[in-house]
């Protein structure tokens, strides 16, 4: 297989502790190796004057599946004027906030990303998620099935049956070829089946009579019982509501007392996603009431060692919101009166889709923008804070380089406050962003976009670093840390890498995509002891309540996962 020597670049690798030293990176047979292992056939990639990092790892983006496709099909306007013709082996590309699968793969590659986690997979629709993942070129992907409103989970947890919950989860991960435990608006989305919700962690779910707090704790327990690579990944209750920070703290506190189990190297038992949407104070969105509670949230997160989060940074774009938080999406359409799609999924979950414009002419969009950045800038340990825009909810993923620019440059943030936001002054008053001097370094950005997410996902043995033995995901950005001082350069460089090696194959050469590689679909196969009760419950519920036969539920067949990468977990102790 091909050999490459990426020479003379400024390397940033928080796992190895390399902070901008000029180091050569050697690639052979799909892995990072010692320079000395390369033969004379190795091709040199000249990274002089450029930044070199491991391939990016995105811990949370909605890029594949039924609600994403609703977003595409019901927003023809999202394709207007942004299409790209096919050229060479590249397929045609389309879409801005909800790109087609080809554009998704190519754009992530252009940003130097090697792995993307599909944030939410409704189990009944798992095949659809996998079909889109299969058709997305270049990047490795996995998907998180949702459990927080699942009838089996709620019934078992109500009875305190952690072992049964774990057995069911292991079974479902296999059925759906899923990666871990996603928990969206626990309990509230089942309540939404009746048009209701669970706003706080203590509101019981209609009929099932279990609280969100119990669901969160139960899923953490089941996750650690299984020792899965990733931890329970939660989208807390009351997303987007003014004053919701107290509910978020209640959510985060459910992790108290839990320690991670298993051998995949993560430190956390709870990952809170798109934390920005959950860090609000005040009683309305009006500037006289709304305020940032990022300090309170980060004070708590900084005081514990078993929680990670991703930002969910608002990018001030017109975008498309889509989430399994059905009641929230209904609330959003009542706010902005834009077209609302909804799908309730039997026994499992729901989804809502609504377009949204984060207009810089509004106070609230400016405040949301500020809060996302504050959370990261207040973080003590950037191995626990990850860059995300909850794509496409807070903004399209192609804005990650812009988010990185804002994190690295006070000047860039002031430019937004002073020249882009209409109510910048108000945002300075009601949020903390104006008084934060901190500018993150490339090393810290590498933590937030590679090393940290890889570790949190339990994938630190494959991704996130240029250590020997790691998968050879290497990216060269046209950014010179010694010379480039214009913050705009950060954004352009991280949007279009010069070179990308993915799993040891050269994908981008001198800024051009020359290959689509051979992407893998990762999933977790957790072995548990035989559990006759859970199997009987599964058979019964399929017979009586599901609309498909049990025999047709499992994602079987090479045509869904042509190149699977299975992570085995032994939970039989």
């Amino acid at each position: 297989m091909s050999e490459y020597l990426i020479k003379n670049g400024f390397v940033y690798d928080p796992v190895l502790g390399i902070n901008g030293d000029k180091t050569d990176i050697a690639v052979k047979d799909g892995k990072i190796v010692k320079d000395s292992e390369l033969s004379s056939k190795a091709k040199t990639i000249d990274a002089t004057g450029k930044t070199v990092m491991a391939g990016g790892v995105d811990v949370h983006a909605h890029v594949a599946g039924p609600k994403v496709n609703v977003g595409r099909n019901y927003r023809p306007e999202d394709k207007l004027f942004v299409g790209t013709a096919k050229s060479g082996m590249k397929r045609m590309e389309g879409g801005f906030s909800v790109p087609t699968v080809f554009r998704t793969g190519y754009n992530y590659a252009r940003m130097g990303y090697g792995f993307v986690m599909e944030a939410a997979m409704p189990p009944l629709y798992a095949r659809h998620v996998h079909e889109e993942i299969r058709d997305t070129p270049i990047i490795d992907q996995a998907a998180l099935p949702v459990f927080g409103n699942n009838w089996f989970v709620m019934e078992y947890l109500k009875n305190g049956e952690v072992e049964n919950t774990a057995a069911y989860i292991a079974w479902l991960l296999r059925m759906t070829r899923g990666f871990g435990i996603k928990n969206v608006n626990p309990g509230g989305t089942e309540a939404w089946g009746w048009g209701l919700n669970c706003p706080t962690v203590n509101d019981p779910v209609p009929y099932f009579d279990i609280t969100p707090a119990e669901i969160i704790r139960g899923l953490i327990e089941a996750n650690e019982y299984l020792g899965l690579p990733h931890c329970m990944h939660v989208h807390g209750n009351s997303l987007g509501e003014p004053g919701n920070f107290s509910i978020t703290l209640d959510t985060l506190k459910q992790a108290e007392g839990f320690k991670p189990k298993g051998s995949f190297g993560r430190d956390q038992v709870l990952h809170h996603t798109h934390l920005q949407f959950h860090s609000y104070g005040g009683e309305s969105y009006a500037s006289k009431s709304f305020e940032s509670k990022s300090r309170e949230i980060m004070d708590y997160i900084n005081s514990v060692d078993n929680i990670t989060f991703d930002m969910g940074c608002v990018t001030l774009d017109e975008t498309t919101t889509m989430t399994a938080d059905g009641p929230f999406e209904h609330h959003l359409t009542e706010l902005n009166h834009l077209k609302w799609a909804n799908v309730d999924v039997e026994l499992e979950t729901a989804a809502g889709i609504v377009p949204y414009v984060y207009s810089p002419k509004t106070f609230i969009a400016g405040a949301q923008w500020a809060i996302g950045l504050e959370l990261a800038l207040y973080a003590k340990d950037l191995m626990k804070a990850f860059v995300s825009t909850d794509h496409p909810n807070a903004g399209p993923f192609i804005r990650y380089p812009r988010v990185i620019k804002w994190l690295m440059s006070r000047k860039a943030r002031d430019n937004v406050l002073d020249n882009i936001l209409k109510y910048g002054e108000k945002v300075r008053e009601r949020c903390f962003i104006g008084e934060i001097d901190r500018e993150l370094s490339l090393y810290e950005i590498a933590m937030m976009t590679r090393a940290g997410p890889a570790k949190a996902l339990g994938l630190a043995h494959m991704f996130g670093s240029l250590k020997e033995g790691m998968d050879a995901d290497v990216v060269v950005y046209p950014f010179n840390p010694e010379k480039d001082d214009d913050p705009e350069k950060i954004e352009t460089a991280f949007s279009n890498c010069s070179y990308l090696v993915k799993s040891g194959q050269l994908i981008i050469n001198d800024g051009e995509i020359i290959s689509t590689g051979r992407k893998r679909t990762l999933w977790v196969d957790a072995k548990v002891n035989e559990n006759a009760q859970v199997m009987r419950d599964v058979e019964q519920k399929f017979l009586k309540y599901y609309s498909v036969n049990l025999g047709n539920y499992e994602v079987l067949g090479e045509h869904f996962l042509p190149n699977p990468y299975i992570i085995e977990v032994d939970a039989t102790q």
Partner: protein
Amino acid sequence: MTKIVPDVICPFCGTLCDDLEVEVSDDGKTIVDIYNACAIGAEKFMHAQAKDRVTRPRMQQPDGTYKEVSYDEAVEYTAQMLANSKKPLMYGWSSTSCEAQSVGHEIAEQVGAIVDNTATVCHGSTLIAVQDVGIPSCTLGEIKNRADRIIFWGCNPTHAHPRHQSRYSIFPRGFFTNKGHKSRKVIVVDPRKTDTAKMADIHYQVEQGRDFELLSAFRVAVRNEELPDTVAGIPKEEIYKGAELMKSGRFGIIFFGMGVTQSLSKNHNIDNAISLTKDLNEYTKFSIMAMRGHYNVTGSGQVLGWQFGFPYCVDLSRGFARYNPGETSSNDLLRRGEVDSIFVLGSDPGAHFPISSVKKIAELPSVCIDPHITPTSEISKLHVPVAFVGIEVGGSCYRMDNVPIDARKVIDPPEGVLTDEEFLSRVNKRVSELMEAK
């Protein structure tokens, strides 16, 4: 000794029943019997066994008769036709698997074709309306388990989706609906007293073509505002009664079909129906669902969506995807003479398009991929038989509620007959060579 293949998916309509059981002969070569299917599904499975199956491609001769040709010749003719066209139309796609659709899209992208599916004469109106107002919906199991108010508007499932009512919408005993049909109230809106209307608690025999007005009237009634004495032939008292029935339920669903997508107000009807559903969510939980016709028209819309960004009427002729029903829709393209060849797979426009469009198909270079002899095959220049998806080859399909189900292979196709995917892959390869040479 025969054996039973369980969990078989029926490849006829959007109900996509997956509980069929097919009895096959011991040598696995013949379907002996089929259980749980409706009359139409059963006929499809049994007819696949017909002794008079076409098993080789047929090329139209100058005198109008057809002569057998080889698959290789068929591949060559098809590839040449598509590669040499300025703006070919690739239509159908609804009666085949997503895998086949995907290969078709690769070909279309190479030659700059229009890709359109049967939604163009079915729920295209719905797709347009959803693009205007969204759609609150759910999976069929939610209906089974929660719904106590069922509305069939402009559709007749007893005839078009025969097992829908017993599997999902009226009779099943679900988790919160364990009294089955006794837990539910049914409203049917149809200008005829259809066999479905005979199940209804209330049948609104609306004046044909005036559903838009009746939908508006329900939206008024839901808000307790004033109505004229009659709307669309229905007295206002009956409308208020229906609105109350809708609001008093715990979970309602509107199923709708061609009565509202194909009558004159088309997408505006659906817009209004979706808006009524949205309005009802102020009072109780309500959803709406399109009764999709072909068993994989939904899948075609999904694959087109994730690959190109639009669900039908996708024009790839400029190198990037464009969409404009009315301009890029099959019937309009044919009528205005804006396509120079037509490739049909997995549908029968010869029978189901207005005759003026069919005349155009007969005039143009045309290829028809279909296991059956159909009006389309008998006016196309080339007819290529293929295996039945869901019977002789498996493949991914999407139900009317977008749930993906993987259809199974139960028996082999007749000796030497290719699958859609195999034929398309060969055409794709040949087209690459031809386009490269250009």
